């Protein structure tokens, strides 16, 4: 006797399909990134993916879960890619691997594995590493660095000295440091005039990376894998607070466009705050989650000591997600008028 319950018809959907589409959506951003800083990014993607799958396999074995079913669900690869894209592209291999293993083992499996993690694993990896290895996490390739693939591999694998070429910073970090050093003498407009670093909007080449993530994110939205709520609220909060402060004192606060197109804003908007497991699930909850993450990210980014604030902002909002969901339950069919 078969006991399979209705519905007998099922939509052609699976977790691995969801995860594959997320990975596909990252491709435009990755392409722009690789064009900007070189193939090192791709190497980091491979390192992170291998580390994630290995850690996943070990944890699944330890937890007595079926390996094939969960290794092929693609969730570990998504986490790995997000880590590889947020870490400095020429970071030593063990740093990326450590972050990834920590994300999979601690942030994911110790909390119960797929679907159970209260915190975004990639952001846990970023936060852990930036607190533990601040110097390495701040070493970005100098802008316009031309380095052959083999040299990049040597640096990542630690076979070559970490040369001065790596003393660069992200445009976001460069801006903050310059403003701090300038101590009121230098204004944002002068800094942004340096097109070598800042390009036309926010950082030479970085605008294209941000645009790549934007395109991928819009595709995910069009495919209905993410809803508009969290990304829009995240971006709106960023624009609101950066715009207000920029209008208040344009000399010390960069304009909203700079903030939207630099750092992890676009990646965060479409690939981080949209994480369904650790984020909010109700429509209003997603708006609050996105807006809260945007505000906090700006505050950490501009007033805090770290190069970017998206990771900490998202982790703080992850903490609040359950209570936000509880308080924002939508009204159901037929009960919309009840108070």
């Amino acid at each position, binding site marked *: 006797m078969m006991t399979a319950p209705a519905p007998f018809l099922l939509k052609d959907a699976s977790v691995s399909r969801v995860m594959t589409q997320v990975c596909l959506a990252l491709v435009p951003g990755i392409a722009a990134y690789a064009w900007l800083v070189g193939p090192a990014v791709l190497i980091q993607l491979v390192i992170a993916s291998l580390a994630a799958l290995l850690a996943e396999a070990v944890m699944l074995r330890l937890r007595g879960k079926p390996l094939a079913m969960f290794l092929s669900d693609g969730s570990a690869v998504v986490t790995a890619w997000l880590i590889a894209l947020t870490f400095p592209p020429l970071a030593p291999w063990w740093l990326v691997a450590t972050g990834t293993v920590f994300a999979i083992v601690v942030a994911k499996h110790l909390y119960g594995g797929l679907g159970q993690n209260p915190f975004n694993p990639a952001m846990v990896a970023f936060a852990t590493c930036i607190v533990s290895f601040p110097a390495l996490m701040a070493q970005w390739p100098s802008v316009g660095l031309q380095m052959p693939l083999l040299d990049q591999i040597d640096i990542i694998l630690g076979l070559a000295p970490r040369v001065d070429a790596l003393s660069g910073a992200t445009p976001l970090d460069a801006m903050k440091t310059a403003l701090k050093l300038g101590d009121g003498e230098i204004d944002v407009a002068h800094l942004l005039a340096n097109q070598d670093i800042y390009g036309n909007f926010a950082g030479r080449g970085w605008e294209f990376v941000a645009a790549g993530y934007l395109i991928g994110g819009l595709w995910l939205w069009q495919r*209905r894998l993410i809803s508009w709520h969290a990304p829009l609220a995240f971006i709106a909060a960023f624009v609101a607070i950066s715009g207000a402060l920029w209008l208040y004192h344009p000399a010390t606060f960069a304009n909203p466009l700079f903030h939207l197109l630099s750092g992890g804003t676009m990646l965060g908007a479409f690939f981080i705050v949209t994480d369904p497991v650790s984020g909010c699930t109700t429509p209003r909850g997603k708006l609050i989650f996105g807006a809260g993450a945007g505000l906090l990210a700006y505050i950490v980014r501009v007033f805090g000591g770290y190069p970017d604030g998206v990771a900490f902002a998202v982790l703080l909002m992850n903490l609040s997600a359950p209570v936000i969901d509880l308080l924002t339950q939508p009204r159901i069919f037929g009960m919309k008028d009840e108070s």
Partner: protein
Amino acid sequence: MLHQLFKFKGGVKPPTNKTQSVTLPIAAAPLPSRLIVPLHQSIGGTPRPVVQAGDKVRKGQLIGEADGWISAAVHAPTSGTVLAVAMQPQPHPSGLDALSVVIEPDGRDEWIDRQPFDYANATPDDTRRYLQQSGVVGLGGAVFPTHGKLTASRSVAMDELIINGAECEPYITCDDLLMRERAADIVRGIGIFRDLLQPKRVLIGIEDNKPEAAAAMRAAVAELGENFEVVSVPTRYPAGGAKQLIRVLTGKEVPAAKRSTDLGVQCFNVATAYTAWRAIAYGEPVVSRIVTVTGNVHAPRNYEALIGTPMDELLALAQPHPDTDGTVMGGPMMGFLVPTPDVPVVKATNCLIAHADRLFPPKAPEMPCIRCGACADACPHELQPFELYWHARAKNFGKTQQYHIFDCIECGCCSFVCPSRIPLVQYFRFAKSEIWAREREKNAADEAKTRFEFKQFREEREKAEKAEKLAKAAAAQAAKKAAEAAAAAADSSPAAPAEAAVDPAQAAKKAAIEAAMARAKAQREAAQPKNTDTLNPQQAEELAAIEARRQAAGLTDAAAGTAAVDATREAKTEE
């Protein structure tokens, strides 16, 4: 005239698979070898059997009598001999047997003396009773006795009568064919419902993938000079759910806690209207229905099948392919695999689907929920299925009720879209049945407690009465003695002894009652559970909070709950 349509949230668009079974007209299924007619074929009570083994019955003869208002009569589907009135396997997912009348057809298919119902001279109540006696129930699948829905709310004006011809589930085409072929009788039946409910307007909703049916209905409405509106509604599952169709046609949302008449709207299936008209105009009770036979078969088609026909005999008409491995009753979204192939066709059987892995591939293994929210987007009742799942899985049934589990209509949209292949509806059914079971247990415990307390009260009363009698006897004796003494004392004051005579009697009675009340109190306190004696402060606080909630919930006696278990035990030992 274009009718303004409203949208309902959620819903899905599974492949409809309806074209296979609409190419041929409805065919009458041949008489089966035997008929198994379950007595309980509608929501509500189980009709009482009025025949026994050996009886000869004629087609349309009453075999089960409605046992209450929400109950509908059951009739012999053909002429023949009653073989047994016995428990038989049922087309129900539970697989439990139920009382059925087994009839061996004599092949003559002889009707009873059919008399049209004198509708013109009947009161509305007569008509409702007649429909009940004719076994007219909702044929859309819910099988609610139709007469029970034909009374308008007293306080709310009846705005719309909705006739459901949407037929949103994939594969099912029985209503489609019925509308194409027998539109006039449907429209006449709707006229009866209209007369009884007096709505301001009548709307017939048909999904826009059935243009032939809609055209036939429009033609019939025009021909009969009715002012019913035939409205094409967008094809989207579950647009044919009563609440969804009401929403689409009127914009009104009927919550689980309300009746649709409270919002001035009522809804019937087209086939129900048809059977109502057959009963009234031809004196034919419901003994057959249209069943779509489709799925993994060579010749899908709609059959008019007698109620009680074994499903395997009906399915055989459509020639199932050899790899058929089961029969689904209903559609692929809400139907279920019948426990054995020979269970009977009942009034709720709108469709039989031959099941095969080729058509319905086995489900991939269940993965953990990733909270993607696809289920919430698909839920037509705007619930949060993943939250319900979470709490149902944890057997946290209180929480499932907070998340409105009883508003779930089990349409299956959430399971349909779930990328983790979680059988969400299964979890919700499980939670609902657990909640019902607990409710029953609690009611049983409450009843036991009431019985126990009454017994205690009765015993105390008997003791008190005994004591009173004794006291009275003593008082009478004292009075007698006093009277004697008074007589001896001859002519002194007569009032004093009389007073003395009353006083002891009353005092004894009072004392006896007080003693009884004190004993009752002591006993009640003794009945408290023992584990509350040594509480740590935290437990005590929790207990206080629970009692506060109970009191807030209107449970007057705070101790009742804690004592209930003991009371049950006592009552049991007493029995």
